[in-house]
């Protein structure tokens, strides 16, 4: 499933201009040290963290898109870095568990 299709199905609010990559897996983490060892290329990352270090880690492992749950919105310098890296940033008002369930409901596992 592509980033745009996924965002449309889930009603996500895009924070930046993004590249419409294939999304091949999902990873949930709020720790950058965990992301660099476990997240996969072209994955959807679900997190509460909105700092720059998160983008540095996501870019290293080639994450396709990041969804900030509970309505968290990143600062402009974070958005700028993610845009440069081609990583789509999205905001969901749902909490992590609720959002993960929505992903399963639309067939992403």
């Amino acid at each position: 499933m592509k980033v745009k299709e996924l965002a449309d199905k889930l009603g996500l609010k895009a924070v930046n201009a993004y590249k419409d990559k294939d999304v091949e897996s999902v990873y949930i983490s709020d720790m950058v040290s965990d992301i660099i060892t476990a997240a996969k290329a072209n994955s959807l990352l679900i997190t509460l963290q909105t700092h720059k270090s998160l983008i540095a880690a996501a870019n290293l492992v080639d994450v396709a898109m990041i969804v900030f749950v509970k309505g968290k919105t990143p600062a402009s310098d974070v958005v700028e870095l993610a845009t440069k890296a081609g990583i789509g940033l999205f905001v969901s008002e749902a909490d992590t568990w609720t959002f993960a369930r929505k992903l399963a409901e639309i067939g992403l596992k």
Partner: protein
Amino acid sequence: MSACKHRWSMTNIRQGYLVIEGCFECGARSSFFSTETFPPIDEYQEGKHFWVHLGNYQAVKFDLVCDLCRKTVNLSDMMGLMLSTCQDSDCEVARLAKREGPGAWVYVALCADSTHRAGRCVSDEGIEALNRYFNQNIKAPGKKIIVVPCRLCSSIDKCRGIVIADTGLTDLDAQTAQAERQRQRG
């Protein structure tokens, strides 16, 4: 020389703390990885240095193993990774990023001793394996990860970058540990 076209995976992944210390006397900085439940914050004399705890953050260490020939590269000399945003024209890391263009992302592999006075840094073998590992998994066309050792920075203490670190998450743990140690000392 091995003929194997290595295909690297992470192995021996350890969770812990990166502890940073500074010398009260000469201003040198040093760091080490701890797997203790609470990060050590003790001050102590070591030769001419008097080390003072400057900070710590949750971190991970790992080695790389080749899926094909089972060769392992030990990365215990690497304390962390930093995405370089350096624009100092006197710094080789900044010049490299500029030369490589917009699709290249330069990450600095940080060793324990920022002064490099002992002549040690992250090994060449480790740097080569890290480069292959991170690039073999990239799917974005035109994107390239370049990992360089921190000895390439003109000054790692002044170098601009984004350290991949979980700062602040365990501040309460550290305060608890400090209070507990002070209580035990009476």
